[in-house]
């Protein structure tokens, strides 16, 4: 390492500054780019591009109204605040969330669905044969284009990769992005799918019946004791449970529980869990591979009230608890059955 010797002498001459050089390089380039403008470089999109909405566009507020039925072309605002133009009643719909698949079939638009996302708990059976164009790993945009999709229902909060949404929209395919952080938002999402698919009335009927279901269940659990409940998503290495303010937490509260929640992330420490000392442990997303005996055998868990009193209960149909589709009330019912089995009699 003789290098330092050589370089000490000219120390007075400091290294030049990088910022002016970078600026000198970047500014002209950006000016050139700005001058070109994106439109001159991008090939012309297909004729039915979303940008070219007709002059007589009827603006329909998303999901808010159920009557009168919107007419096409229509523009609706999705859960990310994007105004999405749907030029005509969609005939070739691609569903990129399991909930949207269920919803489309429930509102009678199932025969217009041409492809779906992979679904570990596929429902309804009629959707079973649909080609799968998206998995956890990603979305096959080529396939969606080849299927001539004229409406794509995607999941927000990174469920559908944002890049894929950008790409599909860039190709002129209308994409509505939905997610549900509350029961109300789930119902609004169902209505939005109905509006976009040209089945507003069926969606409104479905939403009304779901609302009645929710009200009935909530009424049945209203006066009951609210056990401190730990809803377990996974505890194979770290312990994961539901964040406060999430759809999970709201569902648990509606089911008559006082859920142990995290502030923001899904992770909870064993210390916090022991301090909360839940009276009930519900095995949620890990119900398929975890038993009450497993829970009792975990080091440190034996002193939790729920474990001592044998209140470690697997949730049947845990998939439905946060699937914001037509069976969301069934998810609530599954929670109530685990927590207050007597309430539903």
């Amino acid at each position: 390492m003789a290098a330092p010797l050589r370089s000490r002498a000219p120390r007075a001459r400091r290294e030049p500054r990088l910022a002016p050089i970078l600026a000198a390089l970047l500014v002209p380039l950006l000016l050139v780019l700005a001058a070109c403008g994106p439109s001159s470089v991008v090939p012309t999109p297909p004729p039915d591009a979303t940008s070219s909405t007709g002059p007589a566009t009827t603006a329909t507020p998303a999901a808010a109204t159920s009557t009168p039925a919107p007419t096409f072309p229509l523009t609706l605002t999705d859960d990310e605040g994007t105004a999405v133009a749907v030029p005509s009643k969609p005939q070739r719909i691609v569903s990129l969330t399991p909930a949207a698949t269920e919803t489309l079939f429930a509102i009678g638009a199932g025969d217009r669905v041409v492809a779906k996302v992979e679904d570990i708990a596929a429902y309804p059976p009629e959707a079973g044969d649909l080609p799968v164009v998206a998995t956890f790993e990603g979305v096959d945009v080529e396939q969606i284009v080849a299927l001539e999709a004229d409406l794509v229902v995607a999941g927000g909060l990174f469920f559908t990769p944002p890049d894929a949404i950008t790409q599909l929209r860039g190709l002129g395919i209308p994409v509505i992005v939905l997610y549900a952080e509350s029961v109300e938002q789930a119902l609004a999402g169902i209505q939005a799918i109905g509006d976009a698919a040209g089945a507003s009335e069926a969606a409104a009927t479905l939403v009304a019946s779901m609302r009645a279901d929710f009200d009935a269940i909530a009424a049945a659990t209203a006066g009951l004791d609210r056990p401190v409940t730990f809803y377990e998503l996974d505890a194979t290495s770290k312990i994961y449970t539901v964040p406060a303010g999430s759809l999970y937490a709201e569902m648990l509260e509606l089911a008559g529980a006082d859920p142990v929640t995290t502030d923001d992330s899904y992770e909870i420490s064993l210390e916090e869990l022991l301090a909360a000392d839940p009276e009930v442990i519900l095995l949620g997303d890990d119900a398929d591979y975890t038993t009450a005996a497993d829970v009792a055998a975990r080091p440190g868990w034996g002193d939790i009230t729920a474990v001592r009193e044998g209140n470690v209960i697997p949730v049947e149909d845990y998939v439905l608890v946060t699937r914001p589709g037509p069976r969301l009330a069934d998810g609530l019912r599954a929670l109530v059955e685990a927590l207050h089995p007597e309430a539903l009699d």
Partner: protein
Amino acid sequence: MSPGSAILATRAGSAGRSGLARRPVAVAVAGLALLAVALVAGIAAGSVTIPPGDTLGILGRRLLGLDIAPTWAATSETIVIDLRLPRVLTAMVVGGGLAVAGAAFQGILRNPLADPYVLGTASGAALGAAVAVLIPVRALVLEFGLLHGLAFLGALGAVFVVYRLSRVGASSPMTSLLLTGYAVSSLLAAGLAMAMYLSGAGLRQIFSYLLGGFDASSWGRLAVAAPLIALASLGIILRARALNGMLLGEEAASHLGVDVRRERAILLALASLATAAAVAVSGLIGFVGLVAPHVVRLMVGPNARVVLPLAAILGASLMVGADLAARLLGEIPVGVVTAVIGAPFFLALLRRARTGYEL
């Protein structure tokens, strides 16, 4: 590292074999042929089967303006022109740019382990992307989201900070740069880990950015990234003489009339710019920027004038080929493919290089 030695020109000279002078041309021709094959194959293959005849017809009609009556579905045309073409071209530009930037960093730092990410660009971009995922803004500018914008700024910002910090202190500029780069990268990596911890459902998005890929390519994005990468790479290639001088050592370079400090700063800026634009559009794809320049040097010797353009061609072919393989294997991360293809190829060349090899 042996800072004293550094005479690499001798390596090329030592091989007094006949025909060596013609070798770069042969390598260039072979590289371009490889690139052409990779491009065509990359356009022909994908998850939707389009007959090769249709693919050629679509390309002929849309690119060459030939008067061919379409016998194919309109969707095939969209897939070929708007999905696959921008994808292979993005892979080409990014691969070429990373290879040139890698060669430049290796030369500037006189370190064979240097790659385009060595001075913090990777960790800066990764942190930028991760922070973007935490910010609930979904605006798009020129088809780029906040993630790409912050990744670009993060990459440039990291190099800028590394360079600023390394100007202070007594050790040699190169050593100082490398060590500062390492320190700053570690710090940024801590930030990345924190951001990933906080990201919740966005973790998958961050992860997919870290793995890199070209599946999200579009004309709009290519139109922004390609000029940046191409011009920065061209700028580096035009400064091959300075880079050659630097490889001989600072003193020797000064004797050759190279203003080492100025040239180093310009080359660093250009290489960082190319890298930042590349990682903004495609995420972090390793190995091409490290290996492509070495492979070229093993074949034609260390003269930067030759190495830089050839590295661009090889990097481009390697990346297009790797992306094609990644696609055919079911959209696996392209970085996995670049490493799986690149590492054995590199090792084989290294074993065959009997003359020994030094940067």
